[in-house]
């Protein structure tokens, strides 16, 4: 009876059912059962109104009391299903899942019985509302398994046949319908009876066959989609857990790096201060030889301090999120500060420092300390490996969505086979070692890590003995995306 209302279905999953535990079609079924119960109240109102209006308008000789009694069956069993549904919901999802299939079958069966009774009391097979058996088959095909849907088709056909044959043979009384086919002799002709039975039987079975074929395929697709969705959700959960663990690890590494910095640097700093107090003569006069030896010791201490600093910077830049001071950075200002730091050593060796900056150079979203390290390392390297009286050229240029930093020197250059290796940890080319012992071999590793943490690129152009030119390209909005793939810290870095 409910198909008088053809309103769109509620979306599946509108129930408070834990969908992730159920198949997609199971969720659909649970949602539809409640929908059927709601719709049945409307159907009851429609049927009752139709009966009362027909009686008032046409007043045909129908058994009104029995007709209304048949209509009253609808709210009675609907109330029973409503209570059953509520109880199943309270009992939990597992119970609801089991009950939903039974409830769906029982509801459709009751609807078919009620429809059979209403048709019998209002004209039998002459009554055009007999077609309502067909759409019940569509509902059964959508909601139930194929086997159950064919079972419902058999029930529908059985009820129709019982009414038709019962009225034909006189076991059941026949009432003339005011809205029926009114075909004279329909229920008295055996051919007409057979034709009606054939029409109804073939209609319900073909409908179920077609509808279940389509429903099965749709259900299969829905189950596939459901399985995929659950898979994606599970992966997302796993990713979230992994991300949380990574964040914790990152936090622990950050604290670890800070502690290592303190634990390594503090005693080195104390040693340096102690040595300095002696070389400064604060404990009395010392010979030049002692002063020279202690100065060498201080030089080694400073080398160790540089190494610790470089390792920590490398660790921080490889752990991109440790570069936590993402802000708008004016490269011009950074360049000025870095050039200021190297000016004294450049002047001492008569190395010319030349800068060229685009007038409209944009600021970049970056880690300030990282950028200071990047420029500081490139420029101090350029000065360090320049020949006395040489030249270092620095250029900052803006491009579409990026900036380009170029640092070129006229120094000792990097041999072709070394050009990849110089970006590795602790690697120093032979000619660099021969040129100066000062250096940890981490400077360009740090530069590369910082460039990568900002989503940029670095190029090197050089020939041995003919200087080196580094070109770094950085995006202006480097800190916006989830930066840099997480990279562990290699080697002995914390």
């Amino acid at each position, binding site marked *: 009876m409910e198909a008088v209302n053809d309103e769109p279905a509620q979306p599946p999953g509108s129930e408070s059912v834990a969908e992730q535990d159920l198949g997609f079609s199971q969720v659909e079924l649970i949602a539809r059962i409640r929908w059927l119960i709601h719709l049945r109240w409307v159907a009851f109102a429609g049927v009752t109104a139709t009966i009362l209006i027909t009686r008032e308008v046409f007043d045909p000789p129908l058994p009104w009391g029995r007709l209304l009694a048949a209509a009253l069956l609808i709210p009675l069993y609907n109330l029973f299903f409503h209570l059953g549904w509520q109880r199943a919901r309270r009992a939990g999802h597992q119970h609801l899942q089991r009950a939903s299939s039974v409830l769906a079958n029982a509801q459709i069966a009751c609807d078919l019985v009620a429809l059979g009774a209403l048709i019998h009391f209002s004209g039998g097979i002459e009554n055009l509302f007999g077609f309502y058996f067909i759409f019940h088959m569509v509902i059964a095909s959508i909601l139930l398994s194929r086997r159950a849907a064919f079972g419902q088709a058999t029930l529908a056909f059985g009820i129709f046949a019982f009414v038709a044959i019962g009225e034909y043979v006189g076991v059941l009384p026949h009432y003339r319908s005011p809205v029926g086919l009114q075909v004279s002799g329909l229920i008295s002709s055996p051919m007409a009876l057979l034709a009606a039975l054939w029409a109804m039987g073939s209609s319900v079975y073909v409908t179920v066959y077609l509808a279940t074929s389509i429903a099965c395929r749709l259900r299969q697709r829905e189950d596939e989609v459901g399985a995929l969705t659950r898979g994606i959700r599970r992966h997302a959960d796993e990713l979230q857990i992994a991300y949380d663990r990574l964040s914790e690890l990152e936090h622990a590494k950050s604290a670890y790096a800070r502690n290592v910095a303190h634990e390594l640097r503090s005693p080195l700093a*104390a040693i340096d201060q*102690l040595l300095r107090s002696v070389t400064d003569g604060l404990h009395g006069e010392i010979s030049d030889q002692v002063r020279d030896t202690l100065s060498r010791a201080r030089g080694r201490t400073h080398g160790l301090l540089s190494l610790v600093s470089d390792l920590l*910077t490398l660790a*921080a830049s490889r752990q991109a999120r440790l570069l936590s001071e993402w802000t708008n950075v004016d490269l011009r200002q950074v360049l000025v500060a870095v050039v200021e730091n190297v000016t004294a050593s450049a002047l001492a060796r008569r190395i010319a420092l030349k800068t060229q900056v685009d007038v409209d150079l944009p600021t970049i979203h970056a880690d300030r*300390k990282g950028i200071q390290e990047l420029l500081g390392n490139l420029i101090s390297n350029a000065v360090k490996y320049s020949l006395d009286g040489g030249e270092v050229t620095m250029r900052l240029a803006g491009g579409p969505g990026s900036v380009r930093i170029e640092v070129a020197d006229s120094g000792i250059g990097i041999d072709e086979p070394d050009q990849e290796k110089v970006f590795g940890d602790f690697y120093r080319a032979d000619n660099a070692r021969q040129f100066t012992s000062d250096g940890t071999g981490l400077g360009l590793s740090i530069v590369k890590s910082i460039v990568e943490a900002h989503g940029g690129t670095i190029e090197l152009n050089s020939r041995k003995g003919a200087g080196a030119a580094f070109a770094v390209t950085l995006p202006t909005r480097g800190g916006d995306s989830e930066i840099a793939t997480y990279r562990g810290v290699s080697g002995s870095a914390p």
Partner: protein
Amino acid sequence: MAGKARVLVIDDDPDVLATTRLFLESRGHEVLTAPGPDEGMRQLETEKPDVVILDIMMPHSTEGFHWLWSARRHADPAVREVPVIVVTSIHQTTPIRFHEGDADETGDYLPAQAFLEKPVDPDELAAKIEALVPTKTAG
């Protein structure tokens, strides 16, 4: 020669305390030393130094930070406004904004007047002190 500032040095490393004392006394300053934050606060309240040299990482953790904020919230204005030179070896690895140049739009940075990385160059330290306490160190 400049000199005669009353300097309180707070550091848990006795070698650092001893050498800093030597460096500063050789430059004519009066030096008080405290091996921890509690003793440092006590001396700050009672001895009223002209300037404080403060280590950040002390025995347990970053007590120097907490010490500095406590000093800045102190009821006594003389204590609250004492110039502080932070000396640390963790500048490089901490996300804390040490000075105004590092401050973000919130302007939230450590309320110290100067920062030095360890190991400290005695001449640089003396220059900072003289810049912060000009009236006592002038001439």
